[in-house]
């Protein structure tokens, strides 16, 4: 760690707190107050802002390139120190640098896959709820099937059949196996929205189905969609970590928090830091996401009290 990287790290921390504080100031309405009434909402925001900053400013904060094997003979499995903040892994790569770059993969894949899942889920849910009848029956049976087949096994089958999957395909796969729950939620919301006066009026004025769904129905179903997305990213990140841990997600040497845990697995007793820190990072981020998601639900959906 050089003075520059320490400075950048301190800067990231300050920025994270500043961003959370600024959000709090900006969100002064009743929804914002409900959001920050959650004791864990503000700390969650700080954690998320910190890791997003790490991901974006990775080259400034990471002291070494993530691939660099410093010295496999003398510098492998070094304990955490001033030089190697979180120690080095069995291949003498700096764990902190890989953790920082790994934030790009883990957060990026998590949010992109969730974006895919939410888009498909919202589209299917809206179509099923709006058209009802056989369209609804067909799509909802499809959702039943999707929910009954464990995702991990679908992904295992796909990976077994098509050698290596590239990162965009991985994102698509995780997204396309994760929209079932969202579509049920959106459908329920749309079923009640489509009977409301403003939707009936839009239809009576001659609005086509696509226009009514996109302009009138979906915007009013935004709250449950946003909440399910926020609560869903965590489970997507856990899934990606699991796949990468099994060696079928993000391919080594690209650092993802999941495959970093696998890197340290064989030398767990001698160099536990290689596996411990990435796992801690995942746990922290997922916990922060869940906290923010819970608070968002209370803020956007005041009818549903948190459990």
């Amino acid at each position, binding site marked *: 760690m050089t003075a520059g990287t320490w400075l950048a790290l301190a800067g990231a921390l300050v920025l994270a707190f500043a961003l959370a504080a600024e959000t709090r100031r900006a969100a002064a309405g009743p929804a914002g107050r409900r959001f920050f009434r959650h004791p864990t909402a503000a700390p969650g925001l700080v954690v998320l802002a910190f890791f997003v900053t790490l991901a974006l400013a990775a080259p400034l904060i990471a002291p070494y390139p993530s691939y660099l094997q410093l010295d496999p003979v003398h510098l492998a499995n070094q304990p955490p120190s001033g030089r190697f903040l979180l120690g080095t892994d069995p291949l003498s790569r700096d764990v902190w640098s890989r953790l920082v770059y790994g934030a790009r993969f883990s957060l990026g894949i998590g949010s992109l896959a969730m974006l895919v899942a939410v888009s498909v889920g919202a589209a299917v849910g809206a179509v099923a709820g709006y058209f009802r009848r056989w369209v609804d029956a067909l799509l909802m049976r499809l959702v039943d099937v999707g929910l009954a087949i*464990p995702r991990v096994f679908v992904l295992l089958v796909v990976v077994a059949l098509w050698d290596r999957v590239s990162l965009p395909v991985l994102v698509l796969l995780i997204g396309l196996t994760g929209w079932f729950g969202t579509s049920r939620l959106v459908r329920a919301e749309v079923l009640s929205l489509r009977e409301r006066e403003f939707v009936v009026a839009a239809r009576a004025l001659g609005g086509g189905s696509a226009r009514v769904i996109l302009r009138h129905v979906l915007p009013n179903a935004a709250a449950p969609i946003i909440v399910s997305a926020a609560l869903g990213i965590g489970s997507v990140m856990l899934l990606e970590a699991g796949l990468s841990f099994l060696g079928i997600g993000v391919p080594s040497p690209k650092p993802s928090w999941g495959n970093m845990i696998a890197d340290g697995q064989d030398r*767990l007793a001698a160099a536990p830091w290689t596996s411990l820190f990435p796992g801690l990072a*995942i746990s922290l981020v997922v916990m922060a996401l869940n906290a923010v998601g819970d608070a968002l639900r209370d803020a956007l959906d005041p009818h549903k009290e948190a459990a």
Partner: protein
Amino acid sequence: MSAWIVRRLAAAIAIVLAAVTLTFFLLHLAGGSPCGQRDVQSVAPEVCARLRAQFGLDRPIWEQYGKYLWAVLHGDLGQSFWQRRPVIAALGDAMPNTLVLAGTALLIDFTLGLALGVYQAARARRFGDIALGNAALFVNSMPTFWLGLVLLLVFGQWLHLVPVGGTHDPVLCARLDSLHCVGDRLWHLALPALTLGLVGAAATARYQRAAMLEVIAQDFVRTARAKGLRERRVLLVHALRNALLPSITLFGLAFPFLVTGAVLVEWVFAWPGMGWLAVMAIGQRDYPVVTATALVASGMVTVGNLLADVVYAAADPRIRVRGA
């Protein structure tokens, strides 16, 4: 009630059929052919044609699908390339291990989860409740396999309390034959089951706490207290019985979690169950085994959900009336 069960059963069969169809089309899409990979042209065309005829790959797709369905219905899931024996035999070895692991985890999940939930509800908004609630949130956010590694590091490597992997001691207990070996197997089971069970219990406790708090606010609980019953009896008999209902729903939700979580936990602890088998098979390019594990996993989740539905209907007459 019986009509309702028949309908649920039909839905379950349809879901399993859909899973079979999905695996068939995935296999078909991947386009494996006896002539090697798509772009490899090392096999003579006439040999290729003969092989295709031999494996029925020249027949129309619906006919191949019918054959596949027929074979799966008869328990014929193909041959494992890697183990050189029928897939069903490999699954037969792995399945009991997964069932033992998932079953024990389920037991830990619900006993611990219910106990914690009741305790938290009894001390709602006091220190014990808040501390446990935050701990549960943290455990719930951990990758299951990472928690497994941490437990392994602490209890296996540092404290040497438990073995670090496998189902039994291969030297002393090659077969299950003595009381000592039962203990040995339980000892090997402890850590993987605890890992899965803890993560599940974190979620169960959260739901149970909420359910208890909802029940405690009702009039009959006040009546029970007013009668002069001891708080212990009010909570454990009157409130708990009524707060158990939501947990049955949770019981159904636990199956996908257990089957999925078992894949990673089995891998961490070298526990030769279905998930371990599937991941090993991927390394060996043994896709008949991988697709078969996916089928069996879907079947297990479906049966689990069906079971939870039936138990729920048995416990709550209102569901039967509405469902029938």
